[in-house]
């Protein structure tokens, strides 16, 4: 076994770390990824997890709920340990100020792996990003990463159990806000990336004709006030439109696959989203499908593509988690991951190629 998971629902950080260490036993970890409820003091959990695994790089973030093999949890810490067979090499860096340039981080990656970001083969390397979920900067960071490398970065926006006060990312003993942890891994096993969202595009198109990207605000669709155009596409009133947000978000559809943008609220005649969209982009109205079946199918496809799965890191949107809670399906969702070492968390946004919503992005190891 080259990948091992552990979790703790204890409330004292010292007990949590002792519990996780005991579960991992003498597993020779060179990398530990962990996700911790915002109930735990960020500086302390970051330092304690790092001290518990002195021979490993450690990184993680705060969450809006945790996922571990077979279960969806709250108020817990979940951890995944990799040995040198699973991860040959890893470099963890922190972009400490999301307004700053990312060159120093990329320079560090290039020195560690002894090749330029542009030369790194996306079949040989994979990136993980964990980013402050209240920063509103995910789009910019993913955009800049994508300018410099073909290595795929997959990840999620840190949460804080729906308090929307402050989220944290952790790297090698420290905690940060308004920051992102970027890690490039060189797995020793094949890996695959999964993006699954339970929506299908409808025929209704919404062209973004006016937007305030910095505010994630769409002012006009199809040269009409956004709220009016969205309501018309749904066949309902503007007053009723918010009741449809969860089941009818919008999406950029590329070759039939939606990249979801979830509405947050109506503001006057405009609409605020959890992801920004540029003017000139054509979006499609989406309709929800079946989270359980769609996720199960995505996992089966990954398993078939790889010939087996030894570990999964699941970045699962909090909106999906809320839908699962509402439908009392969290047990069934957890059980989809019962046969495979899995950790994950409920995110305030997901990243793969860009930033998106109401999606589960997963890094899957053979």
């Amino acid at each position, binding site marked *: 076994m080259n990948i091992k998971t552990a979790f703790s629902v204890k409330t004292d950080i010292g007990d949590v770390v002792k519990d996780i260490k005991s579960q991992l036993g003498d597993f020779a970890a060179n990398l530990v990824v962990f996700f911790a409820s915002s109930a735990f003091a960020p500086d302390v959990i970051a330092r304690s997890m790092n001290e518990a695994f002195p021979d490993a790089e450690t990184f993680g973030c705060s969450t809006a709920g945790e996922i571990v093999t077979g279960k969806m949890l709250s108020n817990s810490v979940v951890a995944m340990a990799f040995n040198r067979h699973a991860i040959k090499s890893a470099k963890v860096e922190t972009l400490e100020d999301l307004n700053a340039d990312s060159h120093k981080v990329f320079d560090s990656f290039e020195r560690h792996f002894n090749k*330029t970001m*542009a030369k790194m083969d*996306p079949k040989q390397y994979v990136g993980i990003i964990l980013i402050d979920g209240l920063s509103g900067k995910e*789009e910019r960071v993913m*955009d800049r990463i*994508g*300018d*410099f*490398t*073909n290595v*795929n970065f997959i990840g999620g926006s840190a949460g804080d159990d729906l308090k929307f006060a402050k989220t944290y990312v952790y790297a090698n003993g420290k905690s940060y806000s308004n920051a992102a942890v970027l890690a490039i891994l060189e797995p020793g096993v094949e890996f695959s990336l999964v993006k699954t969202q339970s929506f299908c595009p409808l025929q209704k198109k919404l062209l973004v004709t006016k937007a305030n990207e910095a505010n994630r605000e769409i002012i006009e669709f199809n040269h009409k006030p956004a709220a009016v155009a969205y309501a018309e596409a749904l066949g309902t009133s503007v007053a009723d439109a918010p009741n449809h947000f969860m089941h009818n978000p919008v999406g*950029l559809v*590329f*070759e039939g696959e939606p*990249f979801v943008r979830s509405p947050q609220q109506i503001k006057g005649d405009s609409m605020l989203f959890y992801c920004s969209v*540029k*003017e*000139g*982009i*054509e979006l499609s109205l989406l309709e929800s499908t079946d989270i359980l079946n769609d996720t199960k199918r995505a996992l089966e496809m990954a398993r078939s593509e790889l010939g087996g799965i030894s570990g999964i890191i699941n970045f699962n949107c909090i909106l999906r988690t809320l839908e699962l809670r509402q439908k009392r399906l969290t047990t069934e969702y957890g059980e989809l991951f019962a046969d495979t070492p899995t950790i994950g968390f409920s995110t305030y946004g997901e990243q793969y*190629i*860009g930033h998106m919503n109401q999606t589960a992005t997963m890094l899957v190891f053979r």
Partner: protein
Amino acid sequence: MAGKIKQMIDAFVNQRAQGNSVLEGVVKIKLILKGIDPKMYTPESEDDPAIIAKLNELMHDFK
């Protein structure tokens, strides 16, 4: 003038994807997220200096 943007997009996709169809898809999505939809540009499309400048910058960044 016309058609330069389509030429540049094709060159950019080739530079990044090197014939790999999966990578081509990823590169195209990245362009769409930047507001440059490859589908919208043909050999007859007018040359927009802002888009041309952006594409030049992108090709420079990936080296």
